[in-house]
C-alpha cells in the first residue's frame, strides 16, 4: 500500500513489545497508578496492532476497533481512578498489595 511506509512486521513487533512491557509493569509494579498506566500501555498496544492490521489490509475495521478501545479505555480509566481514590482513602497507601482482603 502506498501510505504504509513501515512494514507490518515492525509495527506488530512494536505492539508486542509494548504489550509485554505493559504486562511486565502490571506484574511487577506495586503502585496502583503505575498499574493503571501499564494497563493503558497494554490496551494501546492492542489498539496499535488493530490499526496496523487495518492499514495493511486496507480495511476500516481496524480503526473502528481503535475507536472502541479508546472509549473502553476512557471508561476504564475513570473507574480505575475512582478506585485509586478509594484505596488511598481506606489504606492510606497506593500499594496494591495492601488490598488483599479477598484472599481465600
Amino acid at each position, binding site marked *: 500500500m502506498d501510505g504504509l511506509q513501515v512494514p507490518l512486521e515492525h509495527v506488530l513487533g512494536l505492539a508486542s513489545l509494548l504489550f509485554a512491557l505493559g504486562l511486565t509493569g502490571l506484574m511487577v509494579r506495586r503502585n496502583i497508578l503505575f498499574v493503571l498506566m501499564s494497563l493503558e500501555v497494554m490496551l494501546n498496544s492492542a489498539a496499535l496492532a488493530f490499526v496496523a492490521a487495518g492499514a495493511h489490509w486496507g480495511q476500516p475495521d481496524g480503526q473502528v476497533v481503535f475507536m472502541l478501545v479508546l472509549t473502553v479505555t476512557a471508561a476504564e480509566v475513570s473507574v480505575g481512578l475512582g478506585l485509586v481514590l478509594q484505596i488511598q482513602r481506606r489504606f492510606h497507601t497506593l500499594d496494591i498489595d495492601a488490598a488483599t482482603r479477598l484472599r*481465600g
Partner: protein
Amino acid sequence: MTDLLWLIPALPLASATLLIFGSQWWGPRSVAALGVGSVAAAGVCVLLTILSWQGAPLQQTLWTWIAVGELSAGVSFYIDGLTLVMLSVITGVGFLIHLYSAEFMSGDASYARYFAYLNLFVTAMLTLVMADNLLLLFLGWEGVGACSYLLVGFWHFDAANGAAARKAFVVTRVGDAAMALGLFLLFREFGTLDIQALGSAATAQWEVGDPTAVLATALLLGGAVGKSAQLPLHTWLPDAMAGPTPVSALIHAATMVTAGVYLIARTHELFLLAPPTLAAVAIIGLLTLLLAAFTALCQNDIKRILAWSTISQIGYMFLGLGVGAWSASIFHLMTHAFFKALLFLAAGAIIHCLHHEHDIRKMGGLRSRLPLVFLSFLIGAAALSALPLTSGFFSKDLIVLAAFEAPGIGPWLWAGAVLGAFLTALYSFRLVFVVFFGRADTLPDRQPGPAMAMPLSVLCVFSLAGGWLGIPVASVFPTAAEAHPALWVEAVSIGLPLLGVAMAYVLFLGRQWDASGLVESAPGQTLFRFWHAGWRVDGLYDWLWVKPFVGLTVLLKSEPVDRLYGAVVALCQFCHQQLSRSQSGRLRQYATVMAAGVIVLLGVVWRAAGG
C-alpha cells in the same frame, strides 16, 4: 368347675397390675397381703378344681387371641392330670415362697416391685402350663423368661447382677429362637398349633423316625434345653443366683427351669415319633447331670452349689423323659420342686440370718443356733440325695431303674445316673456337714420369723412324704412297662447314695480320711479348678462367642465403612486448602497467573494447529 379356671392366672395378674400401677398407694403390709393373697387365692381355685375333677380333661376358651389366615390361636386352657400337677406345684410351692418372701424381703426399698414381678411370674408360668396351644404356651414361656430377667437383676444397682440377668436372658434366648423355629415348622406341617390336634395329626401323618419329626422335636428340645439349663445352654443358671434367694427357689429351682421338662412331656406324642431326639434327650440329661454334679462338688458358694444341683436334677428329669419314663420325670419334677425349694429357702434363711454370707467355708456349727433351718436343710439334703423313704428316693429310683431298662445304651445310662446319685449325696452332705457342724465362725444375728418358718415346715413335710403322693398322669402318658431289674441293680441304685453320705461323713465331718493332700497335688488342683469353673464351659463360650463378638463390635465401633467416605472428605478438604491458598487476594499475582495461563493456552493452540 371350669368357671374357675380363668381365675387361676387372672388373680396373680390382677395383683401384679395393682402393684405395678399403684405401688405408691400401698404400704408394705398391704403389698404383702396382695402379693401373697392373690397366689393363695389362685391356689384355692386349683384345689377346688382338683376336688371337682372327674378325670376327664377340662377345656375352656376365653377368647380368640389371634386369627390370621389359617392361624387361629385362642386364649384357651386345657387341664389334664399333667397340668394339675404343675398347677399344684406352681400355686402351692409358689404360695409358700411368696409367704417366705414377705419376711425375707421386708425392709427392701422396692418391696412392691418385687411382689409385682413375682406375681407376674406366677401368671406367666400358669399360662404356660394351662395353655392348650403352643402359641399361648410360648407367650407364657417368654413371660417367665422376662420375669426371670427382671428378678435376677432385681438388685440392679450392682452392675454384676445386671450382667447375670442379661446372661440368663440371652442364653435362654438361643433356645427360644430354636423353639420358635420349631413352632413355625409344626405350623407349616399341620396348619395348627393346638397341642392335642398336633399330637393326633402327627401320629397320623408321620411314621416313627420321620426326618421332619426329628427336626421339629429337635428344635423344641432346643427351647427346652435353654429354659431348663441343660447342656450346652446351662451356663446361665449358676449366675442367675444373683437374684434374691426366694426368686432362686421359685424360678430357678421349682418352676421355670422345669418348663422344658413340661414342654417335652406335653408334646410327648411328637417326641415318640422321633426316637433319635429322645435318645438325644437322654444323653443330654445324663451328661448334664454328671457335669453339674462334679461342678457342685467343687463350689463354695451355698447358692451356687444348689444351682448346680438343680441343673443336675433336671438332668435326671431329661434322662427320664429320654428313656420314656414320662410320669417318673414329672414325679421327680414335683418332688424336686418340694425339696429344692426347701433347700433354697433354708439357704436363704442362713444367708438372711448370717449377714448375707454366701461362702460355706465361713459357716459352721449352725446346727444348734438355727435348729429349724438345720432340720429343713437335713431333710432337703436327704431328699436330694434320694435317701430311702424320702420323696426324692421314690422319684429318682423310678428314673434310674427305667434308664437301666432302656434298650441298647440302658446300662450305661444307669451307670452314669447312679454315679450322679453318689456324687449328689456327696455334695449335699458336704454342704450339711460343713455348714451345720464343726466350728462356728459366723454367728447368726437373728432367727427366722414365723413367715419364714411356716413355709420351711410345710416343705419339710412334703419333702419327706411327697413320695407317697400319687400324680394323676396315667391317662396322659402311654403306660410304660413296670421296671423289674435284677436285685443287684436295685441294691446298687439304693446303696450308692448311702455310700455317698458315708463318704461325705468321712471326708468332711469325721475326717478319718484327709483328702486335702490329694486335692492340693498338682493334678488335683488342675482338676479342682477345672470343675470349679464348671468344666470351663463358660470360658469356652467366652472364647468362642463373646470375645469374637466383642471384638467385632469394637471394630465396628470405629466405623470401618465410614473410613472410605472419610477419605473422600479428607481429600476434598486437602484440595480445598491448596486451592484456597492460591486465592491470595494479590492482584499482581492474579495477573501473572492469568498471563501464564494465556501463554500456556496459546502454546496448546499453536501445537494443535500443527505449528
